[in-house]
């Protein structure tokens, strides 16, 4: 097994506020790693560092063999290997579902129009939304928009997918359909790094769970970790969620 994402003593501060205080963990190929923790524990920030949306102050992250603190890093190559899905979907409101999905393949990978559309249909089938290919984002429900956002990331054929609290903006009814899509992806062997507040989901999908607390990796282990917490912090955290 080889690590697709490797955090090595990562430090990050926003001004005087230390958000990450030396975190280390690895995500192996084909593995689903779930980051859990309270709001403000630094888990979303850690995730965003992988795609270099935040710049780290110390340590290093190696993503698909690229060091993200390398001054000669090819940022666009990194971002083609990494797919990211956000809490707020971030679909482009002025473009149709098809245009949202084919934008990057056509402009970044120079795929021709017909091929791009065929690929768009294929990823839409994966998320169960083929019939919405000509819709605009505003015509879709939140859950559907989030599934399109996942399809948009998949169209770039990423080597690893990041999910940043992707169901936090959805009501419980719509959460299920999005989680199902993510589970299907996990079963298909996609390497994933997930931040979520859905504990039941984390327990179902995770190969490994990392519990973050106050900017540190507090506990780490297989999915049984939640059933058998070793630290009082994780015990309290799990307890408050059940």
């Amino acid at each position, binding site marked *: 097994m080889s690590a697709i994402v490797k955090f090595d003593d990562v430090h990050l501060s926003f001004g005087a506020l230390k958000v990450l205080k030396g975190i280390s963990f690895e995500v192996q190929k084909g593995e689903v790693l779930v980051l859990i923790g309270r709001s403000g524990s630094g888990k979303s920030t850690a995730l965003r560092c992988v*795609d270099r*949306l935040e710049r780290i102050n110390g340590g290093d992250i190696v993503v698909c063999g690229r060091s993200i603190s390398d001054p000669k890093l090819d940022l*666009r*190559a990194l*971002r*083609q290997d*990494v*797919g*990211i899905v*956000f809490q*707020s979907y*971030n*679909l*482009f*409101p*002025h473009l149709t579902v098809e245009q949202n999905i084919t*934008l*990057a393949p056509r*402009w*970044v990978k120079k795929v021709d129009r017909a091929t791009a559309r065929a690929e768009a249909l294929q990823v839409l089938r994966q998320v169960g939304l083929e019939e919405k290919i000509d819709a*605009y984002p*505003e015509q879709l429900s939140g859950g559907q928009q989030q599934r399109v956002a996942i399809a*948009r990331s998949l169209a*770039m054929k990423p080597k690893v997918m990041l999910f940043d609290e992707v169901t936090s903006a959805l009501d419980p009814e719509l959460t299920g359909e999005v989680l199902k899509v993510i589970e299907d992806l996990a079963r298909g062997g996609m390497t994933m790094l997930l931040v979520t507040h859905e504990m039941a989901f984390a327990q179902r999908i995770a190969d490994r769970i990392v519990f973050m607390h106050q900017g540190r990796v507090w506990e780490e282990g297989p999915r049984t970790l939640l059933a058998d917490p070793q630290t009082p912090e994780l015990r309290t955290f799990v307890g408050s969620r059940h």
Partner: protein
Amino acid sequence: MFTNFALIHVQVLLGGLIWTVVLSLISFVFGGLIGFALALAGVSKVRWVSRTIATYVALIQGSPVLIIMFVIYFGLPILGVEVGSLTAAGIALVLFSSAYLGTIWRASLQSVPKTQWEGADCLALTYAQRMGLVILPQAIRIATPPTVGFMVQIVKNTSLASVIGVVDVTYVGKQVNAATFQPFTTYLVIAVLYFCLCYPLSVLSRRFERAYSVSHR
């Protein structure tokens, strides 16, 4: 001897109106080009770039267009640079509109949510692709009503050029007034002529505002 205000005077005024329109177009086109560059530089993450732009804009917005015109028309010759009245007026109005359009457009770019910028970045788009395909199409929607609204300000401000001798409709108006000594009629006609230029722009601006508030797409 005074002559009576007659059709011939309207024709002369219309001749002056052409220069009002020309000056407006120069201000809008070149002010727009510079303003666009200012807007792009204004959202730059490089501190000194956005600070320099902010200073330029503050300086221009903090001084009357007329004074900028005087500085160029009367000031530059002292430094040995001769400028004609049309050129001086043109430069001053271009500076004026670039500062305002730059501000309007920078604000429009910034009102496209940060998450949209990130979304585009994460898809590995280049700077130009991100701007052209994702940010500008959304920013233009936001920018259109205030931009068209500002064009009205440009048209009205061209009247200041008459002070340094540009033969625009206001300048011609003063001559017509001197010949007829019928200031009420003369200036009323001029006001109507300006109104005819500005009103369609105002209507257009309001129409855009309504169109874009109904549908977000």
